[in-house]
């Protein structure tokens, strides 16, 4: 009985010693001002939400973070949060709001990203010339060694494809793909494959288009982004329709099912239109 008491006492002492040692081994936490800490927490939450595709929540978090940073005169962090909020707005389809938000960015280290977002917004609004001019500015500010350069190349390829220059877009997209190799940028890699598929389809190379779209779909499934997955199926349907494949309608139906499940109204509408058009053609 005495032995048992002794071993229990020793165990407690050992545990106490371990917890004291672990407490001493960690560096003292950095004391940050309260608002700054809250802003950083909001920014981190925003990034987490953006990564899982919750763009509404992400936009709110980034906007909050931006306001809090601004209230403590941390202009750089405020502008960084504004940029992130603009990206969330772009993802939500509010290109005009994103453009307005980006217009106030003055921090030199954020200019390239700001220009990239502006170019994306211009493309979404159909302003091809403005998009190309903005991309040219961004490329001038961000040479080949710059980390954002591959994304800008991909964006330029998108702009060229939108301008009907599919062959040039294809070449540039492949350059972008090479530049992205070995980097942890799966979203962008999927974007390039989707772009290659669209450009190949425009040049009439349906086999390559099919392979590229499948690759994009695989990556987007891995990332778990419903809108992108649905759009990949739409693209596969389009390719199938062009080749006369029987599974084109099935691809459109798949896109519709995903869009409805995720509550993506515009993609559902596109899928429905494509299905109606396909039926009209088959009749």
């Amino acid at each position, binding site marked *: 009985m005495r032995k048992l008491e002794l071993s229990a006492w020793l165990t407690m002492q050992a545990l106490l010693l371990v917890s004291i040692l*672990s*407490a001493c081994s*960690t560096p003292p*936490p950095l004391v940050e001002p309260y608002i700054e*800490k*809250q802003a*950083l*927490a909001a*920014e*981190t939450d*925003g*990034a987490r939400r*953006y*990564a899982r595709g919750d*763009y509404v929540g992400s936009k709110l978090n*980034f906007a909050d973070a931006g306001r809090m940073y601004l209230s403590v005169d941390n202009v750089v*962090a405020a502008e*960084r*949060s504004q940029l*992130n909020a603009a*990206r969330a707005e*772009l*993802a939500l*389809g509010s290109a005009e709001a994103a453009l307005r938000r980006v217009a106030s960015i003055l921090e030199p280290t954020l200019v390239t990203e700001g220009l*990239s977002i502006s170019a*994306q917004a211009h*493309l*979404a609004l159909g302003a091809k010339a403005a998009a190309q001019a903005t991309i040219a500015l961004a490329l001038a500010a961000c040479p080949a060694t710059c980390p*954002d350069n*591959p*994304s*800008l190349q*991909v*964006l330029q390829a*998108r702009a060229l*494809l*939108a301008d009907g220059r599919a062959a040039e*877009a294809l070449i540039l997209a492949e350059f972008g793909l090479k530049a992205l190799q070995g980097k*942890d*940028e*799966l*979203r*962008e890699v999927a*974007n390039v494959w*989707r*772009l290659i598929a*669209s*450009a190949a389809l*425009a040049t009439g190379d349906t086999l390559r288009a099919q392979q590229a779209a499948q690759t994009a779909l695989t990556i*987007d499934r891995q990332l778990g982004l419903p*809108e*992108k997955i649905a*759009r*990949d199926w739409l*693209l596969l349907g389009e390719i199938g329709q062009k080749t006369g494949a029987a599974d084109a309608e099935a691809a459109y139906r798949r896109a519709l099912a995903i869009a409805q499940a995720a509550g993506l109204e515009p993609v559902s509408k596109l899928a429905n239109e494509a299905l109606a058009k396909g039926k009209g053609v088959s009749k």
Partner: protein
Amino acid sequence: MSILIEQDSDAVALRQGTRRFLLIAVLVVIAIVAAIFVRQGLFRQMATLGFVTDSAQELNKGLAVKVAGFRVGAVDSVTLRPDGKVEVSLEIDANYMKFVTHDAVIELRKEGLIGSSTLEILPGADKAHLAANEAKLNFNRAEGVTAMANQLREQIVPILNDIKAITGTLADPKSGLPATLASVRGTVDSIRELATTGNQQVSTLGAAAERALGKLDDDLSLVGKTLDATNARLPVLLEKSQKIVEHVEKITAAAEISVPPAVRDGGAVLGDVREIVSGAKQVWPVRNLVAAPTAAKLKADSDPRAEGAR
């Protein structure tokens, strides 16, 4: 002998008078010549200006140079350069150089519509910097009569063409004035017929209106009865509405007192919760499970909606 001596003294006096007269005459002539030279500007200090132009048309040696309408000099030389351009040199009174700015323009003008040509120096806007001696200024030709006539012709010809087209259209028997007059005549006849038909229809309409008025009278009496019934019920309804409004006002007043503190409390509670959660995130072992808050660098995504080129 004395007579001879007297004649000699007269001759000497005459000779002296002649010499005096000749001397005065020579002095007067010299004075006149000097005055002419002064008038011609021979003793004046002159400054040289120049300009280069494509053509020597109407530019001659001796052509007057003016500033604000005053003659201040003349063209000294007009020479053709090896490159085919014409170089013109002007000499002007150095006293007038104070009016010639470095950005002055020399303009070839006509005095009146068909008068002689003159060169007018037009000072520029920068009055602080005057032109140096031998400066090259800009040259301009004012529009002459021919240019003005051509301009006038260019403006008048389209007007004349329009007048011609309008008179042609008016004279056209199918679509012009005669046709319009015939059409107006036809319209007047139609209006006359319409008036006759209208008179007949109005008399028919009178009977129909009488019948309609009778029916309207019946309907109005029915509406009157309905309004009486509504009048009887309305006070009760209004009283009920008044009570509801008063009730809502009481609720709103109560809410005004109780809601703001609740909202404030809620906000404070939320702030506390946030602080507790962020505090908990920093405590071992939770901090090992939750990523530490850092400045967000989002992953590159140049096409967040996967729209491609659409």
